[in-house]
């Protein structure tokens, strides 16, 4: 048994910070690695809120209903036991965040306020204005800063995880990381590591995610033998602002507070939006889904908008855009949305209180991720994962406001589990594989800096994004997926001929990016292969050639392993021990 176990947490979003806090509290020693200062992690972007069935609105909500909504919303692909546990913990997690000082919105009596989100009929989402993720991240960041000042946590901000150090038995003994200023690579010993590196939106070029969401760490581990599960399940959010560099999210809370999605009934209607009378507007979600209306789950809303634009040719002015209209909302409701209204105003220039917003779906969330057991451990002993980086909880489609809850819950499980594991770990023989892994990473770096090719990494990235967005998002065809895979193989080939225009050894961001790019390409293949082989439609994965869910063949977790340099796919049964799978229908009244 190691005297005082050393745990490394990689990633300082909600999941990473939650695990750090639990370990520090239990007396463990934690080393926290993050590319960006943790307070600038992607979690800061979350807008709408966090779910917990506290039933403070007299609606008869319960954790079992939250459990059922989550499983049903995920089209039964999630293992049910962890979902059950998470939803049961929801109310206590909200109370804890409240105690940490998160400025949640309040009712006149001083209780927590809740709003309704997609895929449920209950007001179950606690929120702090329209910047909930920012407020939650800060609360956890402050707690970690406190533990840091007491010497229980050491932060390595500006360090990038490159790979795990594995000993002769394939047991994790630490990590190799690169200092993004000095460009030094080093190994750090650890008895267990927890990967909380978030999603992989960057593989699609433009998404709602932050710049560092490349999935590079997950991909590196997959290439070292970790299973990557359900890679093909990528959430495309129905409402984002199309942009030059990024698709900025218009949170589901806009619809939760009463926002309505529509297009003119007549596709040639050239009037300005507000002058179009009610009768001439087509509120297509409300008409097609009378019960859930604008708050159908995301995959469904996204496909409907896609169809309105590309099948019915009813996009505004023939463009791929529909209206998201808040102009009818009373002031108090708009006030609760301030943060996102500002985003629209700042980046589009129109005031959404006066003019209906123009939106289109954008890549948003990575349901798939590192395969983990119910203790958050991957198949590599000593490597744990939590947050958007793992595959649990959300199945084939994530419900809005469930991710923030899961990130915290996942971190709360992973931290103590990693600590337990570490306490029972036998010491490594020899150097535990450190020297060999460091050398492997240094060689990769040397190859890159000595490469004198002609390919610009940023251009390869653009091409990757274009092919992924075209073939592997809202609507998928097998021919297109084959084309995408062939394209990525071509890009991997061209990568060998890369030209680093900057070969310096100081704060070389393009060098770090180029390393990540390789991992994005490998993970891109996992997404595409998984989608190609899953001949059904389920949640976010939609194939017109196979429009129905096929439980007999595909009520299964996809597991990708890196074999001979390519993804090899196997399937594993899903835990359906609590709720019997039933057809997923939101259109009834």
């Amino acid at each position, binding site marked *: 048994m190691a005297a005082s176990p050393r745990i490394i947490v990689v990633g300082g979003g909600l999941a990473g910070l939650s695990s750090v806090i639990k370990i520090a509290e239990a007396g463990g020693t934690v080393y926290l690695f993050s590319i960006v200062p943790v307070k600038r992690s992607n979690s800061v972007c979350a807008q709408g809120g966090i779910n917990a069935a506290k039933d403070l609105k007299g609606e008869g909500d319960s954790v079992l209903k939250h459990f059922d909504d989550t499983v049903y919303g995920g089209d039964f692909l999630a293992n049910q036991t962890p979902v059950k546990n998470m939803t049961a913990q929801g109310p206590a997690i909200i*109370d804890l965040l409240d105690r940490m000082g998160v400025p949640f919105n309040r009712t006149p009596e001083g209780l927590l306020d809740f709003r309704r989100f997609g895929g449920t009929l209950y007001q179950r989402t606690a929120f702090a204005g329209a910047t909930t993720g920012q407020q939650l991240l800060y609360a956890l960041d402050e707690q970690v800063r406190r533990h840091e000042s007491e010497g229980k946590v050491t932060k390595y901000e500006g360090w990038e995880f490159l790979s795990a150090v594995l000993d002769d038995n394939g047991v994790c003994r630490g990590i190799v990381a690169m200092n993004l200023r000095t460009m030094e690579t080093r190994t750090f010993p650890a008895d267990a590591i927890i990967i909380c590196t978030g999603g992989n939106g960057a593989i699609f070029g433009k998404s709602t995610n932050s710049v560092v969401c490349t999935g590079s760490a997950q991909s590196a581990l997959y290439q070292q033998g970790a299973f990557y599960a359900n890679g093909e399940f990528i959430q495309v959010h129905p409402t984002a602002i199309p942009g030059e560099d990024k698709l900025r999210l218009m949170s589901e809370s806009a619809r939760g507070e009463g926002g309505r999605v529509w297009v003119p009934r007549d596709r040639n209607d050239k009037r300005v939006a507000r002058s179009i009378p009610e009768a001439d507007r087509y509120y297509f979600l409300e008409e097609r889904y009378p019960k859930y209306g604008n708050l159908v789950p995301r995959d469904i809303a996204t496909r409907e908008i896609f169809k309105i634009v590309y099948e019915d040719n009813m996009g505004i002015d023939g463009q791929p855009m529909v209206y998201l209209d808040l102009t009818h909302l009373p002031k108090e409701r708009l006030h609760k949305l301030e943060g996102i209204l500002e985003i629209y105003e700042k980046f589009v220039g129109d005031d959404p209180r006066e003019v209906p917003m123009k939106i289109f779906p954008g890549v948003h969330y990575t349901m798939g991720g590192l395969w983990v057991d119910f203790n958050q451990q991957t198949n590599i002993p000593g490597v744990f994962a939590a947050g958007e980086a793992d595959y649990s909880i959300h199945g084939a489609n994530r419900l809005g406001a469930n991710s923030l809850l899961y990130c915290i819950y996942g971190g709360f499980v992973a931290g103590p589990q990693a600590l337990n594991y570490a306490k029972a770990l036998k010491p490594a023989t020899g150097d535990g594989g450190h020297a060999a892994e460091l050398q492997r990473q240094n060689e990769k770096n040397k190859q890159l800096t000595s490469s004198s090719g002609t390919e610009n990494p940023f251009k390869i990235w653009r091409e990757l994004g274009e092919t992924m967005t075209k073939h592997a998002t809202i609507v998928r065809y097998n021919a297109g997926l084959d084309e995408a895979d062939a394209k990525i193989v071509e890009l991997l080939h061209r990568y060998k001929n890369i030209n680093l225009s900057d070969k310096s050894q100081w704060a070389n961001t393009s060098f770090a990016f180029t390393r990540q790019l390789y991992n994005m390409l490998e993970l891109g293949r996992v997404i595409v292969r998984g989608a190609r082989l899953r001949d059904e439609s389920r949640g976010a994965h939609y194939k017109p050639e196979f429009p129905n869910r096929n439980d007999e063949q595909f009520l299964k977790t996809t597991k990708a392993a890196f074999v001979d340099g390519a993804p090899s796919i196997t399937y594993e049964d899903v835990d359906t021990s609590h709720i019997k799978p039933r057809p997923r229908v939101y259109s009834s009244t």
Partner: protein
Amino acid sequence: MPRTIKVEIKRQSNPDAPVVTEKFEIPYRPNMNITSLLGEIACNPITADGKTTAPIAYDSNCLEEICGSCAMLINGKARMACSALVDKLQAGNPDEPITLAPLSKFPVVRDLSVDRSVLFQNLKAVKAWVPIDGTYDLGAAPRQFPQIQEERYPLSNCISCTICMEVCPQFNDSTNFVGAATIAQVKLFNMDPAGSVLKEERLRALAGDGGVQECGFAQNCVEACPKQLPLTEAISDVTREVIVQQVKDFFTR
């Protein structure tokens, strides 16, 4: 000929390297922001006079003005690069070059990237956190009226961009002033029911050298803050409390 955007960037390849200015001309597209301009240069790192150069180093993450990474001087003004739109910057004179430079009061790491960790150190010094007993389930927090939330929330919106420090004439090596952001966080945590248990410690931390007394009320901070924090109000409130605390401490010592 298609329109181009002229950009002049102050660069420095490392903290000891000489400062140089490089000029670029980038093909115009509507709705670009400064971060997408910088992305464009990375794709094609060639200066206006045809010299191949290194992509520009700069910090960014969220691209929607919420992570606080991308503060820099744009046309001489401290602001966030991701929310600085080219069309707006050039309104009226599209031929005028846009100038980019790193924040001037923080050590340059490289090009437009600077080291702002001092703010995180300051937050540690004033214990900007609620010292909860533990993360186990202790039931609901005390009730809090919406009016209190309305007062706390704006202060909690600070993205640690350090622009308020950059624009403050008093934020320099001779005063060691902590800057507006840290003072605003002291107000925030002193207002929290459980956070206020550390109130006295926080006020004492702001009492001496580099504390609230350094503020010269130039009010630059409140004008420049991209998140519209009520900074001058926070500074005067906290200053008042620091003085009260000093008087108390004087008599109890």
